[in-house]
């Protein structure tokens, strides 16, 4: 009880109506909270708490460094993966780069478009060029990944 009061007062001092509106309001509107986190391996996961799915992609920085992507190897749907497992690879002429599972779970879907259009990874790495969707077994893993700011600091 005391804690709540104290918190309420603290919030009052910092004008709660303006502070953190996204966090406070979004659940009320859609019951969905989408968070995006990054890894030092230049991958990103967009987690939707309504579906429990994490969409995995490589970052724009990664694609620009790799150059023209010519081949993408993706995991098999249904595979159970653990955070850190090698689940595929992205190949440019210059290099093959492993894709690691950024979170644990089951591979729910892979982006079949990439088989015929690997260039989507260059054109739209964090949207159309997504790699796979993982049904996350431990959603709290998201908290251990990097925020966008921390990710940028990791290589900038």
């Amino acid at each position, binding site marked *: 009880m005391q804690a709540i009061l104290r918190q309420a007062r603290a919030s009052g001092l910092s004008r709660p109506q303006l502070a953190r509106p996204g966090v406070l309001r979004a659940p009320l509107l859609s019951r969905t909270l989408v968070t995006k986190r990054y890894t030092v*391996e230049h991958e990103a996961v967009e987690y939707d708490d309504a579906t429990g799915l994490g969409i995995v992609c490589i970052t724009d920085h990664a694609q620009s460094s790799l150059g*023209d992507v*010519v081949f993408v190897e993706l995991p098999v749907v249904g595979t159970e993966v653990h955070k850190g497992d090698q689940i595929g690879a992205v190949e440019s*002429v210059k*290099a093959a780069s492993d894709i690691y599972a950024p979170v644990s779970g089951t591979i729910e879907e892979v982006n079949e478009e990439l088989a015929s259009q690997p260039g989507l990874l260059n054109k739209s790495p964090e949207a159309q060029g997504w790699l796979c969707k993982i049904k996350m077994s431990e959603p709290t893993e998201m908290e251990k990944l990097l925020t966008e700011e921390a990710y940028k600091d990791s*290589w900038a």
Partner: protein
Amino acid sequence: MAIWRSCSLRTSLALGKTSLHAPFRALATAAPSELKKTGLYDFHVSNGAKMVPFAGYSMPLSYGDVGQVASHNHVRTSAGLFDVGHMVQSMFRGSTATAFLEWLTPSSLSSLSPYSSTLSVLLNERGGIIDDTIITKHAEDAFYVVTNAGRRVRDLAWFAERLAEWNAGDAGAKGPVEMELLEDWGLLALQGPEAAAYLQSLTSYDLKTLTFGKSAFVPIEGLNLHVARGGYTGEDGFEISIPPSQTVQVAELLSKAPVQLTGLGARDSLRLEAGMCLYGNDLDEDTSPVEGGLTWVIGKERKESGTFIGAEGVRQHLKDGPPRRRVGFIVEGAPARQGAKIFDPSTKEPLGTVTSGIPSPTLGKNIAMGYVLSGWHKKGTAVEIEVRGKMRTAAVTPMPFVKPKYWRGA
């Protein structure tokens, strides 16, 4: 006869073997101060080059936002200019220079006509390849030799020791050989189907007469430059040697449209499509020229009776056949890169290792070269190559993968 040069692309290939963060790390490792620069370093930087450590030098990987595939294709369809000034250029002079270089290499240099070049190999006592090299004969007593930047220390020590030995012996008494290192000289490679027309616009010299494998001193804008027809891409082209003080001027002259500056990335994919070796990947001191698919560099009359360093080991491989051979592959599915293991598809016995491999921009197929046990080297032989834990079907394929377009005369 293919005339080509090779240089160690280890750094950029090393990008290929680890996770996504490797490229950035590899680009960031060696501090710039430890690296040597060619005379064109500032020129590259001002042209937007991404500079990377390579064979002890800071060299351009790519320029601006031109991707490797676009850059590669430009050389195949138009023309590209490469700074290869990190390579080691030297002159060997003296009345016994021919005999000296025929002691160091298995090439027939006495029968080579003046102002002609040949690919050759420096061999160790066992017949293993110390380096591959292009030797250009100017006269019986004068040769221009280009060796790899990545082998600079080893080669220069080898030359110094063998020269001392030669000059102290009977041959040297007849006429000593001297080596002059062309330190800091520029070397530019102008490559591609439009290279000749472009260079012709800058000289009165009739380049039609300068056929593949020949060289000449060509007047270009008041300079008289050593121009060799050949290169490391499989395209028609030229390699131009330039005194240090004029390198920037010539680079500026040779890099106007349609010529595009081309970096190490495209250089590697172009040379591999052309089936050419990269020393350190595809050749090393434990590989004989017979294993390396370079038997053709050994002079015909020298196979039987040539007295060159390493002759015994080479002759053994010629006589008994080499235990393994360098071959090309087309690989299904994923590209097989350096280090990928090759297997017998039925017994899963290991057959050898891939030494270079890329998805070919020109062919849209995965090409590779590597070594297999003799008997598995014939065209069309089916093998399996392991990539990321999975076996991929591959077929032994003749090289070059892309047909060369050398200028051999009208």
